[in-house]
């Protein structure tokens, strides 16, 4: 536990010192949500912007948390610092835990910023309880995204090898997880494929919570699925992150 916190502190310290990365990863969701607003303003008045605003903000957090974590962890491998950590006695579960805690701080910041902007820009009048659940689901999605980034990074030998995973995992999330259309209208196989993506479960909760009269009652198992998703990825990453070549 002590060494996990040591890794987390180091990751956070690096993030704070890397002003450009920190700035971009917070500013990027803001800019994209603003562009979304500009785009929605061109739609007919009957267009339901609320259906898309929060899910898109959640998607941005998902995408950025996955990408940043995966790339920085691969950079550790190419720079030789990951190997040095292991030789100095850090265990892989400590490295994974440290990265999770470190990047969760960033993901939490992103979730707060993106959700706040979406609510303000789109003038969404949600009850405090609904906003609380929306924050929790985006945060759990961020945890799953960081774990996905850590897991995927174990298959990449350099930063370039992370990018093919974007069209393989992130882009399908847009189409298969209900962000744009109801996933039940997809062919069965595509609908099932969508169930492998964490955004699907986050979107289920978001859509229910933003629906007038929506409640957590029937959809809370989706939150459990997000937690289980992170736990499974943790176990898998603990096996695939090699301490010994």
């Amino acid at each position, binding site marked *: 536990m002590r060494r996990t916190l040591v890794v987390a502190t180091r990751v956070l310290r690096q993030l704070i010192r890397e002003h450009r990365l920190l700035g971009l990863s917070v500013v990027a969701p803001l800019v994209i949500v603003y562009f979304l607003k500009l785009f929605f303003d061109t739609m007919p008045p009957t267009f339901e912007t609320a259906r898309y605003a929060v899910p898109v903000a959640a998607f941005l957090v998902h995408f950025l948390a996955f990408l940043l974590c995966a790339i920085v962890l691969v950079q550790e491998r190419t720079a030789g610092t990951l190997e040095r950590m292991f030789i*100095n006695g850090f265990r892989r579960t400590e490295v994974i835990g440290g990265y999770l805690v470190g990047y969760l701080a960033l993901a939490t910041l992103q979730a707060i910023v993106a959700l706040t902007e979406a609510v303000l820009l789109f003038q969404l009048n949600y009850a405090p309880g609904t906003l609380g659940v929306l924050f929790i689901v985006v945060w759990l999605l961020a945890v799953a995204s960081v774990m996905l980034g850590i897991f995927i990074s174990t298959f990449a030998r350099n930063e370039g090898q992370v990018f093919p995973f974007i069209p393989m995992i992130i882009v399908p999330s847009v189409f298969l997880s209900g962000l744009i259309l109801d996933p039940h209208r997809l062919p069965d196989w595509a609908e099932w494929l969508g169930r492998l993506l964490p955004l699907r479960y986050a979107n289920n909760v978001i859509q229910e919570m933003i629906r007038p009269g929506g409640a957590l009652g029937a959809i809370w198992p989706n939150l459990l699925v997000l937690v289980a998703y992170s736990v499974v990825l943790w176990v898998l990453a603990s096996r695939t992150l090699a301490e010994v070549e």
Partner: protein
Amino acid sequence: MEQRFLPWFKRSYNERTRDLSTRRHIFSASAAVSHQEWRGCMEAIAVRALTKSYGSFEALKGVEMSVPQGAVYGLLGPNGAGKSTLIKALVGALRPSGGEMRVLGLDPLRDRSQLRRCIGYMPQSAALYGDLSARDNVRFFGSAHGLPDLDRRVREVLEFTDLSDRAGDAIHTFSGGMKRRVSLACVLVHRPRVLFLDEPTAAVDPGLRARFWTTFRDLADDGVTLFISTHLMDEALLCDEVAVLRQGRIIIHDTPKGILERGLTRVVVRRSGQGCEEHIIGGHPEDLAQALRSYGLAQDVDAVEVRRDTLETVILSLIEREEVRV
């Protein structure tokens, strides 16, 4: 007092550490891990029939070696000879295909967690966090070992590597040579008893190279075993023992003196009115004495010039001979 203002590399290790009043803490027997059993044993590193294959390519082909405790052991070889592979296997970062190895009597894979507290590994690349300061880098790698006096140790090793003035600066502002010094500080922070240094002097200027070797000798004087890989043949002279690795196989294993004795010596004798005559003899000191008695000590000899093969020439010729034999 004047000693305090001398550059760190001109002062002895003892003087440098005395300033800090921490001499007994640097690499003393009270190091982080006690190795009671191992102290009775003279071998710091033992390797038997070690092999490593990547598909059909054999990077190590049955390496055998024995490194005594407290020695500066040089692993020489051209690029691609398998030096880094061997070091990575010894520090437990690489699983060999076959053979046995022990470091301080411990198996680098099976006893990994125990061994990592008493070895230090300096990789070829800087392997540091560019955005963090030198102090943060050293503290981070040191914190893995749970040292009770971590802050003091960080100060000591930064002082030892003459980095105190720049300790708070980010690594990306450092020159290549300074990064190597930070890398060395990261290796020393937990008082390791065996150091594995993978080409520590590659791409550093001659001045820094000399400073590094002074440091290595100081550490060895304090009982630390140093296993240093290099492709610079002249560095072999600074080692206690040398092994030459060629295509995954140890082809020479000797002391630098022993290797020099395998070379040739040219004795050029100039006699009055007769010009020069050249005699080629062996590299052993007795060969030279014999030659001088035979050719050099007569009344008519005006001058005797002795030209010995350099260590590099001897090693290259031995490598050539080995290749012909294989």
